Structure formats: C-alpha cells, structure tokens
C-alpha cells in the first residue's frame, strides 16, 4: 500500500511586506491559514507548487507545509508552522495582533 500522503498547504512570504501567506484554492495569497487550499493529493500538490513557484513577482520562499485536516480548516502539524501563522511569542507583533 502506498504511504498515506500528509495533507499540505502552499505557503510563502509576500514579496514586499514579507508577511506569511498561503495559497487559496482560487489562486489568491491569503495571510490567514484557514483560507488556504488544503492539498490532499500528492500529484495535485506538486502541480500547485509549480504554479506557485512561477509567481515570483508576488511571493518569495514558496514551499509545501504539512497540515492536518480539521473542522476549522488546515492546522499545523509542526510547531514551526504554528509560529509562522501566529507570530512571535515575545510580542503581539505578528498576525496575532489582528487575529
């Protein structure tokens, strides 16, 4: 049996602001993880990655990040992605300021 594919989202930093963003199903870059397109199929994920990587004038540092599928959308499986979607823990300077 093939190994189960861990669901993923495409994430990057916005080119000018540097803010963490996620690729949505309708091809927008959203600052909010719940709006990200959850990729559950490996081939589709690779295709989306190629498409996202082509958007060089919008974002920087595109990659696939592991997520769990939950009722309220994708949830990080690793603490690094948890910090990225929220902001630093010493100040409310990141996304947490507006969440």
């Amino acid at each position, binding site marked *: 049996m093939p190994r189960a594919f861990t669901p993923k989202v495409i994430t990057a*930093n916005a*080119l000018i602001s*540097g803010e963490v963003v996620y690729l949505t199903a309708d091809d927008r870059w959203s600052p909010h993880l719940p709006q990200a397109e959850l990729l559950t199929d490996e081939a589709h994920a690779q295709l989306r990655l190629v498409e996202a990587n082509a958007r*060089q004038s919008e974002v920087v*540092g595109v990659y696939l990040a592991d997520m769990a599928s939950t009722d309220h959308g994708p949830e990080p499986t690793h*603490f690094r992605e948890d910090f990225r979607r929220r902001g*630093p*823990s*010493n100040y409310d300077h990141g996304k947490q300021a507006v969440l």
Partner: protein
Amino acid sequence: MYSYTDFDAAFVAERNRQFRAQVARRIDGSLTEDEFKPFRLMNGVYLQLHAYMLRVAIPYGTLRAEQMEMLAHLAETWDKGYGHFTTRQNIQYNWPTLGDIPEMLDALASVEMHAIQTSGNTIRNVTADHFAGAAADEIADPRPVAELIRQWSTDHPEFQALPRKFKVAVTGAQADRAVIRAHDIGLRLHEQNGDLGAEVIVGGGLGRTPMIGKTIADHVSLDDLPAYLEAVVSVWNLLGRRDNKYKARIKITVHEHGIDEIRARVEDRFALIRPTFTGAHMDLYEEIRAQFAPPGFRNAPTDAFDTAYAADPVFRAWADTNLSAHKAPGYAIAQISLKAHGATPGDASAEQMRVMARIARAYGHDELRISHEQNVVLPHVHKSDLPEIHAILKAHGLATANIGLISDIIACPGMDYCALATARSIPIAQQIATRFDELKLEHDVGDLKIKISGCINACGHHHVGHIGILGLDRAGVENYQVTLGGDHTETLALGDRTGPGFSAEEIVPAIERIVTAYLNHRENAEESFLQAYRRLGMEPFKQALYGDAAKRSQAA
C-alpha cells in the same frame, strides 16, 4: 571616534544606490529571487520566519549618540518600535518591508552606518572588546585595528565569495571580553619589546563543530598585520571546503590540515604579498588611530557617588553589578542591562535608545557600546554623574542591576524570528529570568552566565555559557539540551553535555535544580558556579537533573 572619509561616504552611497535599483528590479519582476538573493545578502537583508530582517553593523560595537538616535528613528519609522542587539555587535530589525529597506539604508548612511557584509560569505562586521579605550586592564585600544580591518575587508575583491562567512574579533586587554578564541580570526593586541602587535589566533568557532582557536603567530607587528591577515584568509580561500558547507569554515580547514601546515602555507603566502603593502596601510592606521584619541577626562571629586552609594540601596546594588573599572581616575564603565526580568534579551525600544543616546551625550563623552552579551555600555562616565544617570535609567526601565548574573542571559532570536531555528530561545530566557527574580536568589547565586541558542549554529554562544542551553527539534517537539562548564573568557572552554534534553516545560525547573545543586555544594559564597563545577565535575549536577536514573544508566 572614527568619521567617514569622502571615500567611505561615496562608497556607501554608491552601494545604496545600486541596492535601491536592485530592489526596484526585484519588485517590478525583472529579477527573480534567485537572482536577487545574492544582492540582498550583500546588504544584510534576510528573509526570516515572519518577515524580512535587516542586520545593521555596529563596527567594533561603538556608537555615537546621533547614531543611536538614528537606530531609534529606524525602529519607529520602518519597524515596530524596537530593535534587537545581537551577539556580534549588530542590530537587527525584524519587520521591515522590502520596499522600505533602501530608505533605511540611506538614513543609516546619513550617520555613517551601513549593513554591508553583515551577511553572505564575506568577512563580517569586525567585533571588539566593548570596554575598548576604557578598561583599566587595556594595553591598546583594539578599535583602530578593527577599523583598519574593516576598511581592508570591505569589498575586498578577493574575499567577496569566500567558502563561508568569516568573523574577526579583536581585543587589546588582558581579559578577553570579545570571545576571540571562538572566531575565525581572533587578535589579541600586545607589546613585545616595545613593538605593538597581535597574537593571531585562527580556527575558532562555535556552531555545529565547536573549536577553540589556535595560535598561529605569537606576535605579528602592526605593520605586518594586514598582509598577515590577507595571507590567512587567502590560504583558507583556496583550501576551504566549498563542497560541503558544514566543513567550509576555517576551523575545519585548520583541523583537517593541522595548524603547522596552515602556518607554513600562511608564511609562504605572507612572504609573497608582504612587499605589496608599501606603507600606505600604516599611514592610514595612524590617521584612524588619531580619531580614537581618548576623550578629555575631567578631574573632579566623586563625593556625589559615595553619598548615593552609602544612602541608596537600589543605587548601590546597581553600582555593584553594573560598573567596571575604568583606566581614568574618577571614571567608571557603566553597563545598561537590556535584560530586565521577563524582557527579550537584547531588545531596546526606540524610546530607550533615545534615552541612552541622551545620557551618552550629556554624561558619556558621546559614546555608547554594544556588548556581545547584548547589553549597552556607557564606556566613559564620571562617577559623580552616576546617581543622575541611574535615576534616568530607572525612569525608563533600564536600571536592572543584573550584569553577569543569572538573568543576564544571552539568547538568540530562535524560532520566534529566525528561519534556521529548531526551537525557541526567547521564552526560555524570559522564564528563567522571571523565575530567579521571584526566588530573589540571583545576587546570592552570583556570577553565572546562561547562554541560549535556538539551533546548532550557536549564535547564542551556548557552548561557552556556564550553563548552555541548545534548543532542538526532537520529533516535532521543542527539546532543550544542557551543557555545563563553558567559559567565554580568556580561559575559553566548551561546556559538557549533561545528558538527555528537556522539554519546554521541564527546562526551567531543570535549570533551577542545577542552581540549587550548586548552592548546596559550593564551599562558600565566594566559590562561583564555574569554580564549583570545575572542582565537583558533572556528577552532582547529573544527580540533581536526572536523579537515580543517572546512576542506573551509569551502572549499566
């Protein structure tokens, strides 16, 4: 203090103009990220976890008041109102937008500052003893040599694509406050038969493979020093392992070839290039040195200090921990702690920066220093001014009396900011400082340096902390490894690992157990943690950390 020549100013302006154009071309899509990245790294711009980061050099840690005010202006105008001082005498801005960075660099240039060679595989910002020009134990001010090296290394055509980054630190005192044996090159200025020169140390470094630097030359005359440094870097530039970035630093080159072979190669190379240094470097050195002439110290009574010291216990506690001996009579070196209990080590708000600048201007001969321990230093203050200085600091949350104590923690940005991190550092530092403040123990514990890194790169110098903490990712969970017995001074030593690491919840209690064990085992209050560790070894601390489990695994 050093002022830019017309050449320096024109050079920085031209670099800024080029970078502005590069940013514009990146934003309009003419440059891809792959094409742009080398340019931004040449100018100190990183992409971090949440945003871009701009790293600005504070050469040899020295600032004038107007420069500190400009750092405040940057923090307020283009960042979120603060900056982070690092262990390499840089300041980092965590939230600039790419489009604003050219403006920031122009603003910096207006006060003779820049971000050139603060990243990339180049010779980085040259660091120095933060007590330079002030310390009672100083033989020579290291800053003119550091400035000479900066000028020599900036845009050096042969050294723009080195195998890896290259860091130089200089001290001119007996005590080593610049961790010179943990740098690619460390220089200790000294005199031999009246000739000023440097002991040259190579191949030190922390990171993945920590190494203590080795002496390659006992005494290189100042006149020979630039050619000698060029010989060292150029030998490494050829031999350095470009095939493997983990083996590319000079410490590995020295380790693989042996110091004797490296020395022989350097001497050959030196013989070849020494004749090309025809004396202009010494003229330049003399010009630079003249600019670092000591300020006009005043001769005045210190009664005001003595009165406050006797009357005010808060002032006394601060004076006891935060002052150091100055070479001029009646003067002191005062450290401003950026480690208020529970605050982020090394962070200063724009307002605090302005306050420090004001104090430097009014009382401190217009000088400030940034220490590698992430504090700010007023290098020259007359003791009679200290009560007033202390009152101002206190009013702005800057009078924490903890220099050298357990809450004076070095912590790198860790996973709160750094893209390379494997765990967070800042919250651990905050919790340890808060905890020992609650226990009201830190003055009793005395001299104890905790240093925390958020990954193996060791920017937080954890190997050389009396207690070192290294944050790792163990199967998707933050885990903290502890080392004991490191030493960051002239008797540099790497700490020993205690054993298995601790979770984020366990690490603060674990540190508390180590400290309790020290208090229980020390011979008397005069025996410092490091002395006690050296006498006792790891065993009692292991026992305190792991209990009988440690014994069992030893028996097995």
